[in-house]
Structures are given as structure tokens and as C-alpha cells.
């Protein structure tokens, strides 16, 4: 009799964060192999670009990663601006940075909630959503919608931020550390949580680099690469922040790094709010984006999104439509490294390790 169970986890499964299919081979509860199958959420983001003008494609880039719309939006705008040789006003860059960092907090909060749900704790999910809701309301007030913002435009942002809004942001960042310390009280020291995450899913730095894993997952493996620091885009060069890093390499390290990163983001937001309150400037360099024609060339923008390195490659042939747009996202490579991490672990560690990698499927399938 064959002892090996072949289990199809997904595409419809409560904890595959979308529609991922994992073909798992189990011996009892022990995992022998895992094979990720992706593509159930493929929307043809790259083909869509080729049939649309630059401005028409702008709202669509928000959909590449629905939890980090500002990152994708920034990557696309940045590439277009670099191809056009347009200077973006400093105020606009600060607003963009502020939005991106708030977005990073929102994204990490959602990750924390769903990760804890994967581990079986239900309350943190609601607390995280409560705090994330505040951020989304702030975004709604600023941009008009909660998730699909369409706020960054070529040359700046769509409209200026109001002082009232900035006050709301500062009151939010004054409150968030209390919530974070609440999460830490529930989670960080909890022996069951430690048991599920310590030394589970060890991602060695060499493996991480081989598989091109980036972002918090890479930093949890002890490689200190943060594109905000090493290749400062936007105005990240002007603000002070520390890179959160841990060399434990396991799921617990990934948790610690993300919690630390939320605090770092708060610092950056604080500085951005301070700048925006004290300096007034133009928020938009006017370009004729209606009949935008980009000179021939190609550019790749490097953005540190909440799930790793986000590249937007644009090749232009001088026509109003982009010749080729290519998205490189963090989750895409995190999914690929999953089989390496869970070999030999138990079946319920598969879910815990997968949850700790912070994968969302729209970003993988695009």
C-alpha cells in the first residue's frame, strides 16, 4: 500500500491568500515535497499596457498589488518620469513617501492579522483590521478611494494634502505604537507562537539570494538590503531611519522584522509630516499627460515595497503606448522559495511558514 498522500492545497483553500495551488506530498503529516502552481489570478497586466496609452494604464497599476497600491503606482510613475527627464517637486516626493510608508504599515498590519489567523489566533486579525481601517480612511480622504488610489500622476501627485489631513495623520501615528505594543503582548512572547515559528522555515542567506528573495524576508535572513537605503529613490535619502534586520532566518525573525519595520515607517511618516507642515511648494510639475509621448528608451525603477523589491521595467519606442512593461514583484520569488523552506516539516507548519512569507497572489500572477 502506498503510504504517501498527495494533497491538493488550493486553489480554493482558506489560507492560500488568494488562489494558490500547492501540490503537496505527505507521509503522514510530514511534508515530502511541495510544488506551487500559480496563474489562477492572471490578469495580463503586461499585455494590457501594450494596448493602452501611458495615462490609461495609470489606474491599472494599482491593481498589480492591491495591498500596496502606492508602491506599484510610484514605480510606474517613477519610470515614466525618468524616461521623460521630468523633475518632481520635493513636496510631491514627500507626499509620495508619506503615502508609501502609511501603505507599508497597512500592508504589514494585514499580513500580521492573516498570519495570526493562519496560526489559529482569531483576535489579532480584528485588531489589525481596526488599525488598518484608520489608514484606509485617511487614504480615502486624501485620494478618494480606499484601495485603488490613482493618486500619483506623472510629475507629482494629483492634489495637495491639507493641513487638516496631516493633523489626522499625526494623531494616528501617535496612537499606533500603543496598538503595536498590544500585539506584541499577545503574540511575541506567547510560547505557542514561539513553538510554531522558532526554527521553522529556515531561509539561509545563500538560499535567499539564490532564489532572489527580497524585502523583509531577506532582511530576516541577515542580509541587510533595503532599497530605500542602498539606492535611495524619492526623498528617502533625506530622512533618517534604521534598517530592521535579524539573522535568525526563521519565521519568527520575519515576524520581528515586520513589526520593527512598522515602527521604522512610523518614524519616516513623522519626519514627512513635519516637512510637509513647515514647507510649502508646488506639488506637481505640469506635463501634458493627455498626449504623452515618451522618447525612445528603457528604464527600470527600483522600489522597496512591503513584500520586497518592486521593479517596473518600461521600454518605449516613441509611440503613445508603452512598448513593453514588465513587473518584478517580491511575492513572485517568495512563492518559488517555499518548497525549500518546508521540506521535512509538518503539514501545519506549511501554512505557518507560507503565512510568514507574506505572499499575495495578485502580485504573483499579475
Amino acid at each position, binding site marked *: 500500500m502506498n503510504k504517501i498522500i498527495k494533497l491538493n492545497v488550493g486553489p480554493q483553500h482558506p489560507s492560500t491568500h488568494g488562489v494558490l495551488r500547492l501540490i503537496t506530498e505527505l507521509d503522514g503529516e510530514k511534508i515530502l515535497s511541495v510544488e506551487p502552481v*500559480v*496563474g489562477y489570478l*492572471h490578469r*495580463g497586466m*503586461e*499585455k494590457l499596457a*501594450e494596448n493602452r496609452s501611458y495615462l490609461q494604464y495609470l489606474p491599472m497599476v494599482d491593481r498589480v498589488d492591491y495591498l500596496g497600491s502606492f508602491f506599484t503606482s510610484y514605480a510606474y510613475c517613477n519610470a515614466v518620469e525618468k524616461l521623460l527627464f521630468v523633475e518632481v517637486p520635493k513636496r510631491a516626493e514627500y507626499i509620495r513617501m508619506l503615502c508609501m510608508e502609511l501603505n507599508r504599515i497597512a500592508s504589514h498590519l494585514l499580513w500580521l492579522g492573516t498570519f495570526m489567523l493562519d496560526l489559529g489566533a482569531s483576535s489579532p486579525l480584528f485588531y489589525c483590521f481596526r488599525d488598518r481601517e484608520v489608514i484606509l480612511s485617511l487614504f480615502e480622504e486624501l485620494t478618494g478611494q480606499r484601495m485603488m488610489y490613482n493618486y500619483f500622476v506623472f510629475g507629482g501627485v494629483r492634489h495637495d494634502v491639507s493641513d487638516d489631513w496631516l493633523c489626522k495623520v499625526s494623531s494616528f501615528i501617535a496612537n499606533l505604537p500603543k496598538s503595536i505594543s498590544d500585539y506584541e503582548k499577545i503574540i511575541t512572547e506567547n510560547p505557542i507562537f514561539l513553538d510554531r515559528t522558532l526554527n521553522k522555515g529556515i531561509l539561509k542567506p545563500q538560499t535567499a*539570494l*539564490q*532564489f*532572489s*528573495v*527580497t524585502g523583509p524576508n531577506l532582511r530576516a535572513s541577515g*542580509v541587510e*538590503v533595503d532599497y530605500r537605503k*542602498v*539606492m535611495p529613490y524619492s526623498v528617502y535619502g533625506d530622512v533618517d531611519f534604521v534598517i530592521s534586520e535579524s539573522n535568525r532566518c526563521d519565521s519568527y525573525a520575519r515576524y520581528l522584522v515586520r513589526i520593527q519595520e512598522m515602527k521604522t515607517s512610523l518614524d519616516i511618516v513623522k519626519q514627512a509630516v513635519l516637512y510637509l507642515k513647515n514647507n510649502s511648494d508646488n506639488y506637481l510639475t505640469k506635463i501634458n499627460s493627455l498626449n504623452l509621448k515618451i522618447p525612445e528608451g*528603457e*528604464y*527600470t525603477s*527600483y522600489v522597496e515595497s512591503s513584500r520586497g*523589491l518592486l*521593479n517596473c*521595467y518600461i*521600454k518605449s519606442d516613441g509611440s503613445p503606448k508603452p*512598448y*513593453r512593461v*514588465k513587473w*518584478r514583484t517580491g511575492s*513572485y*520569488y517568495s*512563492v*518559488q522559495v517555499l518548497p525549500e523552506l518546508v521540506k521535512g516539516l509538518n503539514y501545519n507548519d506549511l501554512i505557518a511558514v507560507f503565512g510568514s512569507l507574506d505572499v499575495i497572489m495578485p502580485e504573483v*500572477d499579475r
Partner: protein
Amino acid sequence: MIDVSVISEKFNIEVNETKIICNCDIIRLLEFLKNTPEYNFNMLTSIVAVDMISGIELIYQLYSTSNNIILNVSKIIENNLAQSVVEVFKSAYFDECEIYDMFGINFEGNNKIKRLFMPESWIGHPLLKSYKNEDMRLAWNE
């Protein structure tokens, strides 16, 4: 930007302003770039494929975590057959599957190549400029 004269002596390459164009064995070049300490390109961030009508251009985007430099290596494929770099960078597996799926390039040395996003029964390779979908059942094809 790095000094590429050493590489251009060793390999037969041209240097563009944003990328170096490789006319030689891509595996040897990548291995050289990866293992030489002064470059140490230990991460292949992604492989971009562009349909140039005459052929397909593959851009290998390399990053060195220790030296903090990026390098784009370009290779033009003309007969739909490329060399797989999975041996050098394991992360290339998904990329190559995607390029096979979208551009129809076969990768020599990648044994487990399959369609990544589109169903196995899909006809054609969507990101080619010559691709035309005639399946009228699809709602978006109106």
C-alpha cells in the same frame, strides 16, 4: 556603474549606456559575474523579455548585495532557443517558465519547463507582438 573593460576583454560584449550586450555564452558570463569577488553579482532580480520583432531580447537584471551595484545583461534570442541559467541562479526557474509561456522561448537545460500563468491548452504566446487571440468565447475579446 562598474568598469566593464575587464569583462569586454574576456568576453565578446558591447556596452550600451544602460546595459551590456552579450554575444557569447550567457551561462559563462553570469558565472563569471557571480563568482568574481569585485563584482559579486549574487542576485538575479529578474529576467525581462522584450519582443523585438526580429528576435527576442532577454535582459538579465543582476544585483550585488555586497557592492550595491546593478547590471543589466542583454542577450538577443533569434531562434526561440535560449540557454537556461537555472544552474547559476535558481530564481530563474519561474522567470524562464513565464518567458516560455508568454514568448514561446524554449530554455535548454531547464527540464521542468511549463506554462506558468496560462492554461496548458492555451494556443499561442500572449506577449508576442504578433499574437492575436481569436477565441471569441473570452469576454474581454469583444
